């Protein structure tokens, strides 16, 4: 077994252990406080823990399947996220071909470019080519009503759901001296830090939350939850330094950047939901809402994480 594989195994055992403890705690809470399923918070907690299991297993399977597995998993995530996002936008009949292009050409093309590991075109395909071509496709239909809003929404949807999301699997393309064949652990690092930050913010908020941090955006987020969650997730990141090319301090700083981006990304996506008058992006994941509800912080932190590593650690 290679060092990467044994590290991966250790990591998976750790995650399975955490989830086992969570499942057990959820089970006991249910027995004690909600035997008939009457306590909504506990039912939701248990639905979330179940969904965690499914997500952890899916990501683990994708990582075991290698590059193609990770790419297919995230291409599917992009598809489901884009579907959720576009559902909430003001599309009109005239956007039909632009939207078809977004789903069936831009999205697959982005992941094919990622497969070919051609950074030059991968990193500008959506910000340059899609950005210029999509409004051209839309304008041909001659419908000017809310034109700027419509093209901006489609571009934003592509940037968030496809471009930014694809930076998670893009971590596999980085060439880091002394870290060969271990890139999949960078994905694990990013996902674990972001998700534990979300969970820890929730836990700290439930335990000590008093002061609302952004009452207009997200009534459940508190200053105490934010500070406690970010601090403890930073420690989680530092403690995971052994799976990264970073020193413990660097790993902690990276985790801090990731959690900050994730937190504010969550606020941005909340603002969009508020504006659209919905509570969740969708219903794909029981207990969590839509896929974007779970992915929002990953999406915001992935490109920054990617470029920080590329700038300071990568050889290419």
């Amino acid at each position, binding site marked *: 077994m290679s060092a990467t594989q044994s590290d991966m195994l250790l990591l998976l055992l750790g995650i399975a252990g955490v989830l086992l403890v969570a499942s057990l705690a959820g089970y006991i809470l249910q027995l004690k406080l909600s035997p008939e399923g009457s306590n909504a918070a506990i039912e939701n907690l248990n639905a979330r823990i179940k969904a965690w299991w499914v997500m952890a297993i899916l990501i683990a399977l994708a990582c075991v399947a290698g590059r193609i597995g990770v790419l297919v998993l995230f291409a599917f995530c992009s598809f489901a996220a884009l579907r959720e996002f576009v559902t909430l936008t003001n599309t009109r009949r005239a956007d039909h*071909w632009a939207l078809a292009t977004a789903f069936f050409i831009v999205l697959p093309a982005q992941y094919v470019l990622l497969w070919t590991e051609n950074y030059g075109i991968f990193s500008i395909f959506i910000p340059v080519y899609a950005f210029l071509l999509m409004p051209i496709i839309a304008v041909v239909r001659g419908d000017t009503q809310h034109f700027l809003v419509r093209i901006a929404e489609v571009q934003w949807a592509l940037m968030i759901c496809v471009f930014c999301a694809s930076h998670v699997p893009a971590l596999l393309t980085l060439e880091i001296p002394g870290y060969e064949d271990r890139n999949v652990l960078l994905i694990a690092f990013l996902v674990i830090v972001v998700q534990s930050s979300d969970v820890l913010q929730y836990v700290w908020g439930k335990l000590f939350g008093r002061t609302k941090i952004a009452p207009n955006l997200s009534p459940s987020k508190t200053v105490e939850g934010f500070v406690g969650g970010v601090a403890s997730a930073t420690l989680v990141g530092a403690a995971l330094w052994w799976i990264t090319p970073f020193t413990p301090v660097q790993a902690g700083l990276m985790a801090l950047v990731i959690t900050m981006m994730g937190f504010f990304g969550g606020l941005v996506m909340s603002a969009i939901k508020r504006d659209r008058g919905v509570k969740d992006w969708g219903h794909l994941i029981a207990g969590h809402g839509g896929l974007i509800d779970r992915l929002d912080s990953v999406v915001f932190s992935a490109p920054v994480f990617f470029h920080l590593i590329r700038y300071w650690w990568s050889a290419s």
Partner: protein
Amino acid sequence: MRAFIAKLVAAVVLLFARAVTAVRAIWDESGLPRRQAIYFANHSSHGDFILIWAVLPPRLRRRVRPVAGADYWLKSKLRSFIGKDVFNAVLIQRVCDEREDDPVTIMAKALSGGSSLIFFPEGTRNQTDLPLQPFKSGLFHLATACPKVDLVPVWIANLNRVMPKGEFVPIPLICTVTFGAPTRLGSGESKEAFLARAQAALLELAPRQAGG
């Protein structure tokens, strides 16, 4: 063999519909419809009844037949196969002059055979900007002929955006199918009053914001 291919096609169509729309049912407070029913729904796309089909549990789905226009579904061999074999549609003639049997009689026969029906009381696909076109009188005549069968309003949201008129590439968007409370024709209720009530019951299920 034909039946097997029909089953296969049905499964593929359902899978495709789910992949594109991630369709989700929102049931009425009274829960899943248990009894035989006439599901009456808004009609904006050929895929409408497929979504209703997709969200119904298989046990119910097997007994549900869509009511469709014979003028459309008998036009070619392929359409006839899809309409009759795959979806087991109850085909009625919409053009009066070409009618051999009264549509209400045909539908009543299907109901007395134990099937539930999916019925589009607007008559044709809605291609206007209105959320709902005025109902044709068919639903009233059907309710008069079969007063003991539940009438369940069903609102299909967003499918018109997935595949607007004249387009052939579907856009993946999340659709919902909302079921309302079962109702029946009141005793002595006039045609106008009944149709107005049925329309209101259906419209009430439409989601508030149009962009969502």
